[in-house]
Structures are given as structure tokens and as C-alpha cells.
């Protein structure tokens, strides 16, 4: 080594006395290094243990990492919430469009906002007239249809693709059932039959919007008195079932609906059009207002002279009358005879609401908007309901 490359004593002395000669690394750095050295020997001394999940995750495949993250508590909570929400939504949609199989002794569901969409209800095996519309929507009050329609629009769920598919599937199923029933009815009518047997009306169509089906009455809806528009519960169901029992018994002893309807049509000079029971609509309206407690109902009872509050006794009478005339209502144009008739009037907050005339052969209902409905009844029934 040449002389000039030997250690320069002066430069070395200057290096030793440089201001940074006493520098030492920060203690935190030293602790980190020594800690890492101690840590490096722990796995070597102890039995090799599997690394913690987070360390293994760094070497795991991407999909496994994602799966582990998705199953972490934070994501699991989100998934659970989404699942519950989806389940609730599905149940709600199912409840909205679930076809109701009506049984004679079964409980009719309470009218709900989606009943307007429930046009594809299967027909009840009991031959009777059906009420085509939502009782609430068929209210006689002039303002009521608008309010009900708006309420229906508001409460009706936004149609989704799934809901539309479900509705289409139900309509298809209902169409098939209707066709089968029509075929069976056709075979019955074409075959030998007893001329004394009552005329059985054709089953109501289950697909209200199906133009290919035979012209039949609109789909059946609830005819039993129901509570104000609210979710049905078991208590109300039991009450309805109990109320339906005497009706079935009375129905067996009363003339056929079609016989009465045909006779009324012959007297009225026109084909009767099945209509919803105005009594049911009135009763539901009264109960709804009573629950709200904001509307005052008054009436002139049969044989009464002045308006009095439409109390529970009056409602019970109205319910009996409704059961007696159930399924017999139809739209008519005649105003009927006024002689030997008993009139019953209702007021809602002082405004005339409707008039019921108990005539010699039936009930005639006058809405405030001019609509007239008629329900033929036999004399014994009329005599029974005439007394309040």
C-alpha cells in the first residue's frame, strides 16, 4: 500500500473528534432491535406453534383472505342485519300477495292495503255471491273512495320484478284453477241434473284481470265483520269464526241467494249486479272511527224518531242484519216502494251518510252519492231484523 493511502493520522484524529462522534442511536430504536432479537428466538426454543391467523393471512390465497374478512365479526354483523332485513322484506311481500284460501268456517283476513291486489283469490267452495271490492274502498261516503284510494296508493308496495313474477305465477295458477272449475261446472251443467236442484252460480274467477276467463263475479273478499283496518289477530279470527257459524246455519234454512236475486231481478226489471255489502262497509267505518275516536256517528234506529248515537247496541243490530243479508246485495236502479217500509238513517259527524230501507221483501240501501243496492230477504228474516 502506498504511503498516501495509509491511514492519515490527522484525518483519523479529526474523525474521532467530530461533533457526531458521541452519537448513539435512539433508545427506542435500540429497544426495538433488541426486542426483535429476543423475539426471533422464541419460536426456536419453544415447540413450533401455528402462527396466528393474521400472520397466516398474509400468505393465504386472496379468496381465503376475503372469506376470512367476510366472516369476521364486523362483516358478520352486517351480513346478519342484511339477512334479517331481506327476510323481513320477503315475509312482508309474501303476506301482501299471499293467496287466501277461504273456508266456510275460516276467518276472513282483515282488509289491508294490499287487498286491492288480491284479485287472484281462489274461490270458496260455498256457492254464494261475492263482494268484488275492498269494503273500505267501497265506502258510501263521497270522500271515502278518494281517501281510500290514496291510502291504497300510499300503502301499496312498489311493484318489484320479483313481485310481478309472483303475481304472474299466481295469476297463471289461478287461471288454471278457474279453467278446471269452469270445466267441472260445464260438465255438471251439460250432464243430467235434477231440475229441482238450486241453481249454483259459477265459481268466482280467481284471476280478476284475466279477460279469458268466463264472466263471473269478482273475486271474493272478506264478508264477515271485521275490525277496523288493522292486522288480523287470533282474537278477531275467533270472533269471526264464531260469527260465521250462525250464518252458515241460517243459510241452510233460507232460500237460495240466486232464487231471491232472480225474483228481485224479475221485479226490478234488470239483471242484478252483485255488490259489496254496504252494511259491512258501514260497520267497518264505524269501528274504525270509534277506534280513532274522532268521528261521531248518529243514527235513527228502526222505529226511532230522532237521531241518537250509534252505540254498541246499534252496531250489534247492524251486524245481525249484515249477516242475514250477506251475499245478497246487488246494485239496482229502482228506488223501491216507500209504503210499509222502515227507514234507518246514519249521520257521520252530522253529515248524512246512508239510508237503509227495510222493505217487505228485502233491504234497500241508499248511498249519499246516489248508489242503490238491494238485498232480497225472506219475510221471517225481515220480521226478525225489523225489531231493534
Amino acid at each position, binding site marked *: *500500500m502506498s504511503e*498516501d*493511502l495509509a*491511514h*492519515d*493520522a*490527522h*484525518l*483519523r*484524529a*479529526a*474523525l*474521532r*473528534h*467530530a*461533533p*457526531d*462522534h458521541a*452519537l*448513539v*442511536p*435512539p433508545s427506542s*430504536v*435500540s429497544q*426495538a*432491535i*433488541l426486542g*426483535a*432479537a*429476543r423475539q*426471533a*428466538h422464541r419460536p*426456536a*426454543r*419453544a*415447540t413450533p406453534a401455528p402462527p396466528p391467523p393474521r400472520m397466516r393471512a398474509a400468505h393465504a390465497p386472496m379468496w381465503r383472505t376475503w372469506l376470512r374478512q367476510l366472516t369476521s365479526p364486523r362483516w358478520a354483523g352486517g351480513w346478519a342485519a342484511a339477512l334479517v332485513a331481506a327476510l323481513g322484506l320477503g315475509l312482508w311481500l309474501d303476506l301482501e300477495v299471499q293467496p287466501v284460501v277461504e273456508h266456510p268456517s275460516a276467518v276472513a283476513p282483515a282488509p289491508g292495503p294490499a287487498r286491492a291486489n288480491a284479485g287472484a283469490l281462489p274461490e270458496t267452495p260455498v256457492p254464494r255471491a261475492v263482494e268484488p271490492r275492498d269494503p273500505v274502498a267501497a265506502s258510501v261516503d263521497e270522500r271515502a273512495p278518494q281517501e281510500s284510494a290514496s291510502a291504497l296508493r300510499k300503502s301499496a308496495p312498489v311493484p318489484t320484478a320479483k313481485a310481478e313474477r309472483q303475481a304472474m305465477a299466481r295469476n297463471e295458477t289461478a287461471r288454471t284453477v278457474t279453467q278446471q272449475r269452469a270445466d267441472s261446472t260445464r260438465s255438471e251443467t251439460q250432464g243430467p241434473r235434477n231440475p229441482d236442484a238450486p241453481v249454483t252460480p259459477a265459481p268466482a274467477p280467481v284471476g280478476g284481470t284475466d279477460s279469458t276467463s268466463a264472466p263471473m263475479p269478482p273475486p271474493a273478499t272478506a264478508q264477515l265483520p271485521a275490525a277496523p283496518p288493522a292486522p288480523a289477530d287470533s282474537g278477531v279470527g275467533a270472533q269471526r269464526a264464531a260469527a260465521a257459524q250462525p250464518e252458515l246455519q241460517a243459510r241452510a234454512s233460507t232460500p237460495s241467494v240466486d232464487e231471491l236475486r232472480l225474483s228481485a231481478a224479475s221485479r226490478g226489471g234488470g239483471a242484478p249486479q252483485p255488490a259489496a255489502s254496504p252494511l259491512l262497509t258501514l260497520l267497518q267505518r264505524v269501528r274504525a272511527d270509534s277506534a280513532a275516536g274522532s268521528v261521531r256517528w248518529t243514527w235513527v234506529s228502526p222505529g226511532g224518531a230522532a237521531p241518537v248515537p250509534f252505540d254498541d247496541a246499534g252496531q250489534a243490530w247492524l251486524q245481525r242484519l249484515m249477516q242475514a243479508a250477506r251475499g245478497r246485495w246487488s246494485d239496482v236502479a229502482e228506488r223501491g216502494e216507500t209504503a210499509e217500509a222502515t227507514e234507518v238513517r246514519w249521520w257521520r259527524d252530522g253529515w248524512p251518510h246512508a239510508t237503509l230501507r227495510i222493505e217487505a221483501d228485502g233491504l234497500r240501501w241508499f248511498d249519499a252519492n246516489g248508489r242503490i243496492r238491494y238485498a232480497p230477504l225472506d219475510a221471517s228474516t225481515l220480521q226478525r231484523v225489523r225489531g231493534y
Partner: protein
Amino acid sequence: MNPHALPPAVHADDDDLALMSAFAAGDAQAFEWLYRRHHAALYRFVRRLLGRDGTAQADEVFQDTWLRVVHAKERYVAQGASFRTWLFTLAHHRAIDVLRRSGREVVLVADDDAEPFVPDGTPWSLWPRPEEAIDDLVFWRRAGAKLLDCLEQLPIAQKTAFLLHHEDGISLDELARALDIGFETAKSRLRYALAKLRTCMGAYLDAAALRPRHANVPLRLARDEEPTP
């Protein structure tokens, strides 16, 4: 390696290879001895190598260097170089990486400078002749500060060669092997570094020519006497 075997007993005066072997065998205390022995010099080397602009990265380079030692404990084999040379070489490579990452120009091929070295600032006129001995502490402290300024002006390759050779006592052969360069290259780098530093320190200036400007300043400064720059 048997994990249940007791680590070999180590002592503070064991050489680096023995301590490193003990550390690889599972004795963390051996690493602490190694760390205590070399941490100050290595930290100083890293700080000087990175310069004033790289002070912020000095801790990172220093820590990474020691962590590499920890992770390479079982792979470490003394291949002609001492543990200290290997340690400083690791730090050098890591410093180069940091400098490149920070966007600074790193000239490793600086074995033949085409242009003459012109040091920044005024050369120090008080640099003693090689045969002169100065035992004044203040003088050397000022000389040390001046030398750090001069080091800032060296390319990192020459700076590395000078620091490893003069500060850490690594021979030219070992320097060449550690930096994976030829002996002549190492020799050239060191020569250029020394020449530039001596120029910067005023060692090549004519002392007689400087004396008139500093006539009142004796060449050999007495202790505690403040020199006049």
C-alpha cells in the same frame, strides 16, 4: 438445531464470530453483546454516509441493518470478512437503497474523477503537516467539524471507502471484498477520497503562503487557545 439445547455460554470478550454463533444457537444475550460493541460505530457510519440530508433516514437504515443481522443469524457464515465488515457492508447497501428511494443521485462509479475537485468554501488553512503533532482538543474538534463538511462533498462511493478504511479500520482487501469491487477500484476510491479531503482541509496548501494572513496564529496551537480561521 435442537431447540431444547442450552445455548453456549458467551462472554463479553468473545469475538464477533463466537457471539454470532451463540446468537444463532439461541442465545439472545450474545446479540446484545454484539449490539453494544458495534452499535455506536455503525450508527455513526450510517449518519455520515447519508449526510445531513439523510439524517431522517439514518434510524431506519440502522434498524434495518440490525434486523437483517437478526434474520440472517443462521445463514451467517464468515467468508473471509469479519462480522464488523459484514455489518457495515449491510448498512452501506441499505443506505444506498434509501438514497435511491429518496430520489437522490447515487454515483457508485466514481473511480476516476475527470474534473478537478474544487471544495466548497474556503480551505482550512490550519491543517498541520503530516509530521506535526497537535494535541489541542479544541483544534481537533474544529477539524472534525470541518471534516464532516468536507465529507458531504464526496461521492458516496468514495465516502464509503474512506469511512470504512479510516473510521472502522477495514483494510483495502477487505473493503474490496465487502463492496464486491476490485482491489484497484477500492484503492482508487480511497485515493480520491483522501485527496479531496486533504484538499478540502487545506493540507496541500503552502503553509508559508498562508502564514502572512494568519501571522499571529502559531502552527501548534496551545490548548484552549481559540484559533483564528
